[in-house]
């Protein structure tokens, strides 16, 4: 599974992109975020307030209950501020 980080999530986690293999019980966006938060202090800090974290799975906006699986591209980012 490819994970992409943008904006301050990228800065706090210290990486723009990584490939991870979460345990088999991680099958939803919510479970993936909880698992990522255990990967280190930067992750825990970046993911401590999920009200300011948005997720896209395969480039579509996703909610906590949506499914994730091996091979997906999952992006984590703050609420968007374009325009």
């Amino acid at each position: 599974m490819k994970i992409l980080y943008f904006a301050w999530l990228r800065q706090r986690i210290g990486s723009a992109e990584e490939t991870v293999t979460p345990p088999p019980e991680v099958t939803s966006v919510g479970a993936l975020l909880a698992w990522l938060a255990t990967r280190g202090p930067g992750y825990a800090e970046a993911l401590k307030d999920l009200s300011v974290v948005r997720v896209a799975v395969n480039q579509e906006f996703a909610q906590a209950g949506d499914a994730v699986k091996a091979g997906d591209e999952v992006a984590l980012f703050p609420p968007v501020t374009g325009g």
Partner: protein
Amino acid sequence: MIRVQREDFDIGAELDKLTAGRSDIGGLASFTGLVRDFVGMDKAAGADVSAMTLEHYPGMTEKRLAEIEAEANTRWPLSASLIIHRYGKLTAGERIVLVACAAAHREDAFAACQFLMDWLKTSAPFWKQEDTANGPRWVEADAKDDALAARWKT
């Protein structure tokens, strides 16, 4: 048409291209977003901003902009539409975004243009970091923008 690019754009040339060879267009509305040189709503209260860096999600950005443009075209009878959004480091005063809509009648062109801006503000994956007098600062999403986008929900 949508474009995501680092380079600046020529508003006049872009608008001319949109209507070239057409005589069925009665109205062309456009909006240009620029890098403002202060934080927040009030220049006197906000810190100075010298530049802004726009980050985006290549791939998803183009997809979302194309979806938003397609949605505008289902809601209004547009003759032509255009979204150009820049990324990278832009100094105060530089152009960020151009949205333009052409239609037979002005009401459709105005409404579609406003809709495109409201929707891209809240759903296109761009993030802005300002270089302010107090150091770099990530621009936070504004509840006002969510409210503006929500008025188009049907």
